[in-house]
Every structure is written in C-alpha cells, then in structure tokens.
C-alpha cells in the first residue's frame, strides 16, 4: 500500500453516519460485488446547496476504506454540482492505487453520486416517504 492509502486507512477521516430521516441529509449505499465491499456515505447539505458535513463507513479492503475517507475530505465544502463531477481517477491518482484496486475508487465515486441523488430525491418528495426516497435514489 502507498503511504497515502495507509494514512487514510490508519487515520480515517469523518467516520460515522448522519440521521437518514433529516431532510438535509443524503445517504449513498453502494457495494462492490467483485470483492464484497460495502460503503455508506452520508452528506448534510445547507440551504446554499453546499455540503457542510460528510460521514462514511466502509467495510472492505484498505483501498476501499482509504478511497471513501479521501472522498469525504474532497467533498466537504463542495456544491452538489461539484461533488457530482468527482471521478474515480482523481481518487486513484491521489492515493496511487494500482490498477487492481481501481474498483475501490469507483466504489467511492458511486457512493458520493448516490448520496447526492438521494438528497435531491428527498427535496422532491415529502419527508414522510424517506424509505421510498432511498429506493428511488438508488434505483
């Protein structure tokens, strides 16, 4: 593992979750069937459409944990539009992931996009249909 991966693996940033019932919270939950990793990424968005808080929890290999930890440091302070444009190549480059681990950075990209999508879907539906919103957000 490259030292950047080890840093994020040994000192993961923003571990945890945010209450999925909160109207200003979006949660992305994604999996990588190839290796059985799972990743959950939660964002809290302020009235200006800026991500003001972000939490993650990943169960998987070191590169998956490092990728999601790093992505949380990227998106805090970003607008939703900026966060939606994150590419796995940026993550892989920063962490110096080898080709065999590129799917870990892809998982992190999927997670942030899924969280943004979930948040936006909640803005379009009443708070009471959170469960349905999660379904539609990840459909």
């Amino acid at each position, binding site marked *: 593992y490259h030292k950047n991966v080890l840093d994020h693996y040994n000192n993961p940033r923003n571990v945890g979750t945010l209450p999925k019932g909160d109207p200003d919270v979006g949660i992305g939950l994604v*999996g990588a*069937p190839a290796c059985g990793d799972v990743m959950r990424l939660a964002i809290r968005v302020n009235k200006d459409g800026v991500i003001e808080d972000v939490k993650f929890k990943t169960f998987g290999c070191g590169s998956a944990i490092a990728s999601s930890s790093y992505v949380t440091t990227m998106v805090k302070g970003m607008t939703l539009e900026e966060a939606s444009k994150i590419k796995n190549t940026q993550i892989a480059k920063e962490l110096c992931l080898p080709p065999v681990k590129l799917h870990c950075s892809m998982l992190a990209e999927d997670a942030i996009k899924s969280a943004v999508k979930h948040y936006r879907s909640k803005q379009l539906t009443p708070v009471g249909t959170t469960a349905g919103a999660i379904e539609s957000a990840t459909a």
Partner: protein
Amino acid sequence: FHSSSCQSEAKNFYKQFEGDISDPPPKGPFDIDLGALKSSYLRKMKTLHPDVAQGKDAALAQRDSAELSKAYNTLKAPLTRAEYILQLQGINPVSEDISNSDPEFLMEIMDVHENISASRDSPEKLLQLSQENQGRKVQEINEIRKAMESSNWDSALLYVNRLRYWNTIDKILHDL
C-alpha cells in the same frame, strides 16, 4: 495416463474429473460428490508425480499438476464452482447491478458488519453471528442450485453475487 497437455487452453475443469463426478448444470446437478472429487484428484495427482510420470517432460507434468490443482480448488467450493459454471455459460460472474437494484440487501450487509464490529469482545455473540452467516450462505447456495438446474442464469448470477458478500463476512469472522 495420457494427457492432452499440448492443448493451448486448460481443459474444462469438469472434464479433468470425468467419470468420477457429474456434469455441470443444467445437464447435471450443482452439487458435487466432494469425496469422489477428492479421491479423483489425489489419484490423478499421483500419476503426475515425477517418480510416476515416466517419460513425461517435467515441465509438462508440473503444468498439468498446477491445472489439476486449480480445477480441484475451483470445483470444491460452492462460490468458485458457481462462478466457473457461469463462465462455462459465457457469463461474466461479476455483476455490478447489485448495488443499484437491491438497497435493502446492502443495508443488511452493512448491519451485519456493524454487528460484528460491536461484538468483537464477545465470543458468544461472534459465534452466533457466524452461525447466522452460515445460514445465509446455505440459503444463497440453495437459490443458486435451483436457478442453475433450471437454466435461470440471470437469477443464478444475482445469487452468486449475493453469496460473495456473505463469503467476505465469513473471512472477517474467521480472522477475528
């Protein structure tokens, strides 16, 4: 013992044990007689030993031995056997669909992982979690069997990918 070792491709894994185990689905069952598989493997390995494979090139015997080991290890475990059977059907056994089509399943996976993390100091709880995980694996394997034996390959692919998540949890529990 005559080997078709000049072939450029590895022999079909099932054919390496032909006559000792059944054909793969849909013609044959998903389950394999593991005792027969092991006996066949050990017997064939003996014929590849340098002392026995007289006249055979050492490098060829070594390659045949490696291929036989790979075939055995692939077929003996349900997940790798299922993946191999999908490949025989021309299907890539890794599907990216699961994270988009089954959020409830991913939530279940996350919950199990978090339960394990919260139970690291409790051997009794970890044992219970391990037994529950075995139950889930058996269920997925049952679904894989049903799907494959009725040529329902889309369904088989889904359950193979689900099984992989439970296998990952098994490894984590085993390493604790």
